[in-house]
């Protein structure tokens, strides 16, 4: 996956780049409007991560330009600290695929990218196999153990989302905050909410254990949870 990261804030740029590279993305950097414009003209990308407040021009103009050109088929995710609703509407109208207000979680960013990829390539049945024979159908939002005609694991919406997120970032430790932010989105809550995560994890484990082994969800002491 080829990604163009357009972000003028150097430190943030480095952090995002590092994370994406670890996640096996090929990352190109642009720090200014002109730089980004040139790179977009020359190369073709799978993703453009676009900061709106750029030196030399409005990030939305880049989006507009790219949408006019035939050969650029990148999916755009807008990253902005402006947080204005107006920007959001404009961005999505112009054909941005998603929008993340700063500060955002890098995990959230990569899972949005995965979701866009799934959508883009029309993966009708996208399945994740995990544990000792569990199968998650991401499109139908079901989890089964074994054969497709076996009974569903009765997970609630949030429990499913939680499990899905852990599996998407398999092998990574996810903190309660990261999980909470994914579940409840960009809603302003104080951190007491992260206690709900423990209860959710407990319930997911209990429900999975009735069908197979739930040991693949590891508790990382003092930090959070990890799916292996």
């Amino acid at each position, binding site marked *: 996956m080829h990604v163009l990261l357009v972000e003028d804030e150097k430190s*943030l740029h480095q952090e995002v780049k590092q994370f994406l590279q670890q996640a096996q993305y090929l990352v190109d950097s642009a720090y200014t409007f002109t730089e980004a414009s040139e790179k977009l003209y020359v190369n073709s990308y799978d993703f453009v991560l676009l900061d709106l407040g750029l030196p030399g021009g409005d990030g939305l103009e880049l989006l507009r330009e790219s949408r006019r050109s035939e050969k650029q088929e990148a999916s755009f995710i807008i990253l902005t600290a402006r947080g204005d609703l107006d920007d959001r509407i404009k961005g999505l109208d112009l054909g941005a695929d998603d929008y993340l207000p700063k500060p955002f979680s890098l995990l959230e960013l990569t899972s949005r990218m995965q979701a866009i990829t799934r959508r883009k390539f029309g993966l009708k049945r996208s399945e994740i196999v995990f544990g000792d024979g569990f199968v998650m159908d991401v499109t139908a939002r079901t989890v089964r153990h074994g054969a497709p005609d076996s009974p569903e694991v009765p997970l609630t919406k949030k429990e499913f989302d939680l499990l899905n997120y852990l599996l998407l970032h398999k092998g990574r430790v996810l903190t309660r905050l990261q999980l909470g932010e994914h579940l409840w989105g960009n809603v302003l809550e104080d951190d007491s909410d992260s206690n709900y995560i423990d209860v959710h994890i407990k319930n997911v484990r209990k429900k999975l254990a009735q069908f197979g082994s739930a040991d693949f969800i590891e508790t990382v002491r003092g930090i959070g949870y990890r799916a292996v």
Partner: protein
Amino acid sequence: MRLETKLGLFNGLSKLLLVVLGVLLIPPVVQRVAVVHTDERLQEKKQEVLNLIARDGLTTFLREEHDETYADYNILKQEYITITPLGPNNGSGATTERIFEEPRQVGKEVEDFRILSCEVPLGATKGDTATRRYRLEIGSSLGTVELLTDTLRSLALWVLVAGAALTVFTDAAFAHYSLRPLRELISRKLRGIRQPGEFSFERLHTDTTDFRRLDDSLSALMRQLQASFDKEREFMSNVSHELLTPTSILQSRFENMLQDPTLPEPHARQIVESQRTLYRLRNTVRTLLLIANIENDQYLRDASVSLRQTVADVAEELDDRRQQREISLHVDLSPDYVVPQANATLLHTLLRNLLSNALKYNHEGGQVRVLGRPRLEGGYQLRVEDDGPGIAPDNVPLLFDRFRRFHATGPKAPEGYGLGLPIAQTIAQFHKAELRAESELGKGTAFVVDFAA
């Protein structure tokens, strides 16, 4: 009471007083004047008669048929003169003169007369020395005076009543006209203003200096207020933006650090702790930014949003945590209320904050009630009630304070309501609604949103 009404009332009452005074005072004064006038005339007549007697002698006046009494009446019987000889023994030397009122029979009618009576020594014929004393009476009928008084009284009454009525109306009309700028100032410029930005800076049409000044000072004050509001918001918004970027960097850096498989556990824990701290900072900044954006009218108000639907959405979203704490939810909105000119996202946030608080500060197995009723005075009232520990009365006003977290005391005291309520309040105000709290320690808390009609 409105100024115009007050002026009108005062005007009417003062005119009424004037009429009453006029009706009471004018007749006695007129009567008095008439009497004085009559008295003067009687004196003149007396002098005239005496002069005539001195010139022509008494005999020309005396007619023998009536016991030497001379009497003369004019044809309308309004005045008369009598000269009666007095006995020699009741002469007293001095000329006594009296003026009094007495009924006298003239012809066949008895009438009130004003009478001048005096004793004078008169000679019988011309050139005679005064030998005998006579009583001279000159009377003038009071009938004319009374008639005059009555006429004047009713005339005064009518003139005063008509004048008063006329001036009451013209005064009211003038007050109405000259107070129009004030009315306009209140109804057009001040009524329904929630923030200085809504004030109309269009100049008032008036040539009254006072109103001109009032309008100008109000406008100046509003401009000043607006400017400082703008500055505050701009500041909040700038600061928030400036804070979000470094927060962003730190958040990403922590995430990257946590991905390092060689990271020792104590360090990892510290990073998680730092992440929590950063999360709190981030939420505060986002809250301030959200509030600033709402107050800066960055949000559209172009949807009609059903409260029932929004409550259902929020309830579904919070279903998991509600069930985790075994709290039952009772929703009764009868009828539903569709908020006009609303922002669906913000209303969702408002209800989410209220419901989430009601769950958070409830005891396990408690109940949360969402009740909606039309208000008697129009509009709609939405209540979100919980069975929680309640809030001490002293703390209730602090709930909505943006920069203040209070700490409740008592068993299982909630840690504080955080910034959710100031957000909720800002959103309520954005929708021309009012958010308040009713709470009783040990019983629970109700958050009430009153939507204006």
